[in-house]
């Protein structure tokens, strides 16, 4: 399940409210809940399609499984559902 780098960025920022974290070296995004960062996802140097191998590493940073990520991409998991996953996994 490849996904374009731009599409992934749009998904994280546009739907799941990740915010770009300024930095000189790496392009990274953080999810903030209650004023605290709860996840950091690096999309550094990624262009074009991201294949499953690399996507697997990125979904680990988001604290979701590949199956859950597919649900997020297909809009089956709403932002509140994502937060519920994070809560269930003890990441909040």
């Amino acid at each position, binding site marked *: 399940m490849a996904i374009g780098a731009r599409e992934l960025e749009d998904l994280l920022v546009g739907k799941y409210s990740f915010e770009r974290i300024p930095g000189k070296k790496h392009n990274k995004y953080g999810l903030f809940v209650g004023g605290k960062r709860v996840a*950091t996802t690096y999309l550094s140097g990624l262009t074009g399609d991201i294949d499953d191998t*690399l996507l697997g*590493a990125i979904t680990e940073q988001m604290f979701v499984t590949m199956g859950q990520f597919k649900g997020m991409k297909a809009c089956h998991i709403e932002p509140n559902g994502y937060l519920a996953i994070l809560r269930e996994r003890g990441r909040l």
Partner: protein
Amino acid sequence: MATGQATLVVGQSTGFRELPFAVGGTVSGKSSVFSIPGKISYRSLYFDHTTLTKSVEAPVLEQLRLGPEGLTYLMHLKSPDYRLVRPILLSVQSSESGKLVTSDSHVHMYGVGESLSEALVAYESMLIDYFEDLAENHDAISDYLSQQLAWMLGVIEKV
């Protein structure tokens, strides 16, 4: 190339269990004894998947968390500002584009490169960036990210 002690990580449903073993020696598993030849290079310890499939019994192999290419250790940092307190175990996988992807199971940083050396350098860069980022923002991160920071403080130190 040198030989010496190394650590084999056996995947568990809840995490990892580390088993020390001598490279080229034998390891006692739960109910099996298996031999895993390996080699230690300057930066990494690398197990060849083909070798493993030939030498490891199937039930044990299923417990091993191995990508197509296997596991490696980041032994040293190239950064002049930091050094490793202990090696970091990384998985190594091939992407569809043929590039290698290294990643760890603690803070989930990754590195991508045309070669293993390139992927390790990229991993190190991301790891140090994350370490500095969390250290700088330690008062505004979740408990879990604090645990990740604690792990990094245990493996990375300022020179």
